[in-house]
């Protein structure tokens, strides 16, 4: 080794380098969001601020209609979460527990949709929405995402793992199917359901592509589009753009702080399924 540094030192240096690579961009955003314009353009740049400029957040809030985009983001995220539970749970249960004609064909169809690259077929779907007058509605940004092939697949696996003996016992007790789902199946599927909910929350909150291509006005557009608009109009004021950007990131970061282990596990699962 040409530097003749002990191995421990090299490890430490590399670790510090990695920490800088992944944390510095966030720190720079945070710092910029609290600077004045003069501090933002100062050369050499300042790596600390003396006085936090909270006014940047107020400016970001008023220069675009922040509340409007936030409201849309919340409606669409909640709508997708609730809708997905209502659609996916019964479908997964039926595929796991019932025998019916055409079951394997229908399930094959559901699995096949996991292979469809959704972003490539936005144009025909846009035309479909336009034809039925659903452009610029919440429905168009919620309904396509409440049935997910992966969610049905994951949940079906969970339902199939519930031992038959438990179900037989419940049926002997004359429990209705609905009661079985509610009292036996759903409690056992809580880990899978929360995994799905986390993945859906993160995906929907962050979504930029579909709210952009399936809308023509600001009526139902979401926060990522709002913050992009802030960049378009306030590009010369990075402190305001970064303040707006922080407000977009914050809900995700809060959830991540509380459910870090769970989220990482959810992504690992969806990645190695």
């Amino acid at each position, binding site marked *: 080794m040409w530097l003749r540094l002990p191995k421990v030192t090299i490890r430490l240096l590399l670790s510090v380098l990695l920490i800088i690579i*992944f944390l510095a961009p966030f720190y720079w955003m945070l710092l910029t969001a609290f600077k004045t314009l003069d501090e933002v353009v100062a050369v050499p740049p300042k790596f600390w601020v003396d006085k936090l400029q909270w006014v940047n957040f107020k400016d970001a809030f008023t220069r675009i209609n922040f509340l409007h985009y936030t409201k849309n983001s919340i409606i669409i995220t909640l709508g997708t979460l609730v809708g997905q539970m209502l659609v996916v749970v019964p479908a997964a249960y039926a595929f796991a527990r019932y025998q019916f004609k055409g079951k394997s064909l229908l399930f094959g169809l559901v699995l096949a949709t996991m*292979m469809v690259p959704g972003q490539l077929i936005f*144009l025909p779907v846009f035309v479909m929405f336009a034809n039925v007058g659903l452009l610029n509605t919440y429905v168009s940004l919620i309904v396509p995402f409440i049935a997910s092939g992966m969610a049905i697949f994951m949940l079906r696996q969970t339902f199939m793992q519930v031992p038959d003996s438990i179900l037989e016992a419940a049926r002997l007790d004359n429990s209705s199917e609905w009661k079985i789902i509610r009292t036996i199946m759903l409690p056992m599927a809580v880990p899978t359901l929360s995994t799905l909910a986390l993945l859906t929350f993160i995906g929907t909150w962050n979504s930029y592509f579909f709210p952009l291509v399936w809308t023509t006005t600001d009526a139902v557009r979401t926060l*990522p589009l709002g913050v992009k608009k802030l960049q378009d109009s306030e590009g010369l004021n990075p402190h305001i753009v970064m303040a707006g950007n922080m407000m977009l990131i914050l809900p995700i970061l809060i959830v991540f702080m509380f459910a870090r282990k769970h989220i990482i596990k959810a992504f690992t699962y969806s990645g*190695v399924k």
Partner: protein
Amino acid sequence: MKQDNNTLRILPYVMVAPAVLILVAFYIYPIGYNIYLSFFSWNMRGPMKFIGLKNYKELFSSSDFAHTLMNTIGYMVMEVSMVLILGLLMALFLQKNTFINRFIQTISFTPNIISLVSVSLIWMWLMNTDKGLFNYILSLFGADPVGWLTDKNVALFSVVLVSVWKSLGFNVLIILSALGAIPPYLYEAAALDNASRRSVFFQITLKMISPTLFFLILMNIIGSFQAFETISVMTNGGPSNSTNTLIYSIYKQGFEYYRVGYASAMAVVLMLIVGLITILYFKVLNKRVHYR
């Protein structure tokens, strides 16, 4: 509630119907509709005019399309190789379960759960030619400022860099879980045989995680063909079309020039490419399972 046979017979269909209908309406049917649209000339307002294969003919003789295709392939090659090589190195580096390694793993994963718009905006500011941090750091070493997003020879690389920073942590996570699944007795046996570190790495480590790496390669290829946010936020396909990829071009042809048929033809071509890769993936996957 007592259930007779009739309700039990139709109940499963009622339960799967909403999901199946939505999936067919938004994932299966649009593929056919897309192919149909690609045979027409249509600006979304006027009447549709059937023109057969003319859109495809124009596509394959257009130098713009060739340029866009090259950009897409360039993006894909840079992204996949960087993510895989850096991801593997990082995973090997972080393999020991120590506090600092777990910390690095967590922070490297954070960009992955944040919107690509946010990530793009942060990096746009870092890469700003006049006031960005990157060019300031370069100036400390006496280097000239780099037009990260304004120089047509650099912009595509810059956009890929942002995407790599975002997705690296996820790839590290998957590789780490594959490394953790290698049975320890393989290493113990190798140690008894006095195997060299190099041969342990190639014969055991790399061999055992190769299915995972292969999965990640194909996943990243498919993902790179759909990369949209970074380009839309950071460059709009510019400068001089140097970051204009297929998916961005479909968006532009459809929504800026209102050439629905032409854009659909491009989507069909891209879908064929992605479809072939997906089929290849499942073919190889089946073979692997079969021989095991």
